[in-house]
C-alpha cells in the first residue's frame, strides 16, 4: 500500500524565552493509504505537535514530513484536520460554519446548504443550524467541527482527541459514524486519543508514543470488522491488546516492536 503520509526523523523545538522546549525528537511514522491509525500517548508527549506537522501548519525543526512522497511545505489539499481546540468561527452560525470549506471553494449556495444540512443531520445537530458556536455545548461544538471537516470531503483525516468531550453513548455513536464514513472510501485516518479502548475499537493499527514522540509500540489491531462494541470488550485478543497497550503507556519497556 502506498504511503500517504510520513514523518522522517522529525524533531520539533519550541522557543520559550531564551530556552528551547523539545516537543518531538527524531519521530518517525508512516501512514499507509486507506488505513485507520490510532495514536496513543500520555498528555504532553507531542501528539498535537505531530498532527500540526502532518497538517502542514508548522514546519519541523529538523527532519521531513512527506505527503505522498513529496516534502510538505504548507497546508496540503484534501486534508481535514480536527484540532484539539475548537476553531469554529464565533461570528458564523452553525450552518455557515459547516459550509465554510465549500464557500471557500466557490461552491454555489444551494449546493452548500444542502450538503451542510446533510452533515448537520449526520452529527445530530439538526435544529441548531442558526445557533452561534457560543450557544452550543462543548460536545456540540466538537460535532460541528467534525461536520465542517467532513464537508470538505478530505481523503486524509487528522483527528486530535475529537470525541473526548462527548458522553459515552454519543461517543460510540460518533465512532460508528466515523467508521462508516471511512470504511471502503480509501480515506486514511490519523486519530489521536488517550483512550486505549477507543484506540482499539477504531484502529487498524495502534501507535503508542512515549516522551518526545518516541514510538514505543506500533502494532496492527488483530480484530475483524465490523466490530461489535459489547462483544469486542470480552474478546481475548482485545483484552490482551488492551493490557499490552496499557503497559506500554506506563512506559514499561521490553515490548518495543519497530514499525514494519
Amino acid at each position, binding site marked *: 500500500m502506498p504511503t500517504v503520509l510520513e514523518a522522517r526523523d522529525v524533531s520539533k523545538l519550541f522557543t520559550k524565552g531564551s530556552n528551547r522546549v523539545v516537543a518531538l525528537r527524531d519521530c518517525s511514522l508512516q501512514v499507509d493509504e486507506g488505513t485507520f491509525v490510532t495514536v496513543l500517548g500520555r498528555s504532553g508527549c507531542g501528539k498535537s505537535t505531530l498532527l500540526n506537522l502532518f497538517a502542514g501548519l508548522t514546519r519541523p525543526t529538523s527532519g521531513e514530513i512527506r505527503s505522498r512522497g513529496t516534502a510538505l511545505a504548507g497546508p496540503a489539499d484534501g486534508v481535514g484536520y480536527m484540532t484539539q481546540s475548537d476553531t469554529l468561527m464565533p461570528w458564523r452560525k452553525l450552518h455557515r460554519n459547516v459550509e465554510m470549506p465549500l464557500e471557500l471553494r466557490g461552491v454555489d449556495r444551494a449546493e452548500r446548504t444542502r450538503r451542510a444540512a446533510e452533515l448537520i443531520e449526520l452529527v*445530530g445537530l439538526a435544529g441548531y443550524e442558526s445557533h452561534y458556536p457560543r450557544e452550543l455545548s462543548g460536545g456540540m461544538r466538537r460535532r460541528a467541527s467534525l461536520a465542517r471537516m467532513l464537508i470538505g470531503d478530505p481523503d486524509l483525516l487528522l483527528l486530535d482527541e475529537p470525541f473526548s468531550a462527548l458522553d459515552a453513548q454519543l461517543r460510540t455513536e460518533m465512532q*460508528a459514524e466515523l467508521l462508516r464514513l471511512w470504511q471502503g472510501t480509501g480515506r486514511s485516518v490519523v486519530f489521536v486519543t488517550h483512550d486505549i479502548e477507543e484506540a482499539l475499537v477504531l484502529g487498524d493499527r495502534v501507535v503508542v508514543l512515549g516522551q518526545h514522540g518516541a514510538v514505543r509500540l506500533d502494532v496492527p489491531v488483530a480484530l475483524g470488522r465490523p466490530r461489535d*462494541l459489547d462483544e469486542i470488550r470480552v474478546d481475548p485478543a482485545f483484552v490482551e491488546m488492551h493490557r499490552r497497550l496499557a503497559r506500554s503507556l506506563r512506559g514499561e519497556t521490553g515490548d518495543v516492536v519497530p514499525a514494519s
Partner: protein
Amino acid sequence: MTSSLRVDHAPPIDAPVRIEGTVGWKERHGRSVLVLVLRVLTLVVAIVAWQLTAGHLIGILFVSKPTLVWNQLKAWAESGALWSNSWVTIKEILIGYAFGAGAGVALGFALSLTRVLASVLDPFVMGLYAIPKVALAPLFIVWFGIGLEMKVILAAVTVFFLVFLNTTAGIKQVDDNLIDAARLMGASTPQLILKVVLPGSMAGVLTGLRIAIPYALIGAVIGELVASNQGLGYLINDSASTLNTAGVYAALVALTVIAAVLNAVVNILGRWTDRWRPNDQAR
C-alpha cells in the same frame, strides 16, 4: 446501514427546546423604563433648581437662566442662526468623521498586513497620537485657512487615531487558530482577510468607530473655537465676547443635543457590535 461498528442508537437528539414568549414585557423593559423616567425627572429637577436659584445665589451674568436661554434659542431659531450654525457644525463632524474613520480603518488594515512596517511605524504613530490635537489647530489654519476645511481636518485627525489604533488592536486579537483553520480549508490570502481577519477584528474596528464619534464633535468645535466665523463654536465665542451668557448656554444646549443624538447612535451601534464579540466576551 453498513456501520462497521454496531451500536444501539440512542433516541435522536432533539431540536433545542424553546419556550416561546414566556419572557414578559416587564421582565424585558421594566427596568429601562424606570431608568428613563428617573432620567427625565433628574433633568426637570435640575432645570427648575437652576431657574429658581439663578439671580439669587449666583449672578445672572454667570449662570444665566433657563427662561433666558430658551428665549435666546427661540430668537436664534426665528432668525435662522440656530439652524445655519448647527448645520455647519454637523457638516464638519460628519465629513471629518467620514475621512478620519475611513483612513483609520484602511491604514489600520494596510499596516497590520505588513507586520514589519507596523512595528517600525508604531512609536511614530503613538507619538503623534499623544499630541493634543488642539495644538495642531494653528498649523491647520496656516495650511487650510479658517474655513470648513480646517475643522474637518481637525475632527478627522482626532477620529483617525482612535479608529486606527482600535483597528490594529482588533486585528492583533484575531485568533491564530482560526486563521490556521481557514488555511487548512484552502483559503487564499484575500479569502483569509475577508472571511477571517475582517470579521475577527470587527469587534475592535467597531469599538474604534463607536468611541470616535464624540471625538469628531470635539475636534470640530475646538476648531471653531480657535478660529471661525460660523458654527456653534463661533456662536459661543461671539456670545461670550458680548457678555451674552444666555447665548453661550443656548449654543451649549444645541451642542448637547447634537452630542446626545451622536451618543444614541453610539449606543445602538454598541448593542449591534456586541454580536461580533467572540465566544466568552459576549456581554
